[in-house]
């Protein structure tokens, strides 16, 4: 079955079957944010604790397909202990890999996000094949958008 292996790399299935950082954190002090994929019904819950400008702890709840679940699991492993700046850079690089277009800062049309060449995606590289399946891109990015929102809310609540 050509193509499917591009999407479902072994490491993805591994994270799907054994998700890292699954669970909850008491909120507060943690921030809890739910994310929805309106198309398929996937729901993700991100619990994040920010201390000294870094993600001190993170947990993932909710349910979804292998792509959204494994992306969340890999994300949680990748951001734990990182500074918020590092998390931002990682998110940008991940979205760049997903070929997400965003509006440019001066509002002149939409631009392709450029990856930071210094950021290493590690395991997350396995999700590169998702780009060939446009409907699934939202599955892969759901947890990231939810994390960004959680970090914003945690900043706002201080």
């Amino acid at each position, binding site marked *: *079955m*050509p*193509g*499917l292996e591009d*999407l*479902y790399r072994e490491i993805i*299935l591994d994270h799907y079957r054994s998700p890292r950082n699954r669970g909850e954190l008491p909120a507060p002090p943690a921030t809890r944010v739910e994310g929805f994929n309106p*198309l*398929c*019904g*996937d*729901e993700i819950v991100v619990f994040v604790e920010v201390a000294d400008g870094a993600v001190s702890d993170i947990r993932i709840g909710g*349910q*979804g*397909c*292998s*792509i959204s*679940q494994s992306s969340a699991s890999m994300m949680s492993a990748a951001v734990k202990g990182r500074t918020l700046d590092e998390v931002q850079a990682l998110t940008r690089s991940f979205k760049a890999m997903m070929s997400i277009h965003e509006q440019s800062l001066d509002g002149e049309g939409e631009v392709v996000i450029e990856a930071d060449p210094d950021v290493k995606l590690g395991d997350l590289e396995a999700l590169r094949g998702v780009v060939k*399946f446009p409907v*699934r891109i939202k*599955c892969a990015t759901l947890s990231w958008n939810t994390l960004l929102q959680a970090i914003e809310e945690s900043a706002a609540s201080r």
Partner: protein
Amino acid sequence: MAMSVGDPLEVAAIKKDFPILEREVHGGRLVYLDSANTSQKPQAVLDAMDRYYTQSNANVHRGTYLIAEEATAGLEGARAKVARFIGAKRNREVIFTKNATEALNLVAKAWGRAHLQAGDAVVLTELEHHANIVPWHQLAEEVGIELRWIPLGGDGHLDLTHLDRLVDGAKVVSFTAMSNVLGTMLPVERLTAAAHDAGAIAVVDASQHVPHVSTDVSAWGADFVAFTGHKMCGPTGIGVLWGTEAILDDTPPFITGGEMILNVTKEGFTANELPWKFEAGTPPIAEAVGLGAAVDYLSGLGMEAVREHEVSLTGYALRSLTERFGEQIQIHGPSEPAERGGVMSFTYADLHPHDLTQVFDQHGVCVRAGHHCAKVLMRQLGVAATARASLYVYNDEADVDAMADAITDAATFFGV
């Protein structure tokens, strides 16, 4: 290829009427099992629209010239065809909208705003599509109506134990005629009668019913019935709201502008008569012509035969999937094919439906995964998503078998 003996439809011939079914995807044939989402279109419908655009395209109800008269006859002829198809008593009871969603919004907002006030109750069911929920939520926010829910019972049916209490004092009972997730056929006449006994109006979302089961809105005794063109072999961009003349006369206009007025001054406006009062602006003319051709196509097959075909094919699907996959597959909804439409929501082992249907795609099998715009129902079922296969006139046992093969393949691929 498995062929059903005695199928009331000649599916092999019907498949040829639908050009898209000749398409190859991923090196194999297209197996389209997502007609509850949108149906495919027969060549006759495309031809009717092309003929309209290349021979008679003009705006309607306006010009004194020949092609404008032809365009008007096309639109109004389509209205008459639709009226006959659903058993409407008068053509003017058929209002063209852009889809079923607009039709239901018209009811909730134009009729609802004029007739409901704080504290009034609207009864829905847990089986509803978002199109029959969200407009009522908006009205609840705006005027403070109360929503009540007829609960899901066993085997995909409603639990009607407390129906009388639920409708007591209600102003509206609004419900689907057939669930787009479970296929459940609701007891429309019973619900309509219960509504009327309680002094409420009865609104039927027939989006899944009209394409598949012979429909007689007058026999139903409903006040409003909504459905959509693209699920019944018609084009996108057109839906229908049917209402009794009495209730339509008692409903203020919704979307307003040109074509729906008798007079406009700086001080105000006077609305035109039915059906134009509700059709502001340039209507979906080509789409109406296409819908008329779709009605002709379905009438040609015969709605009784369509229904028989779907009952028998649904029976085959339920049997063969259960035999083949046993406990691994969980199919929601009524177990008795005669009590349901050809819509089957299912999950397989612990495979996420999105992953399952992704494998299906590699087999050319088109099946939708998700909440099917029925999140209230999904919560009641205790699932976030299902895979949903849905059948229509162009499907046969070979299509069901192709999906079953795809399930086997997915199970192997994911090692479950």
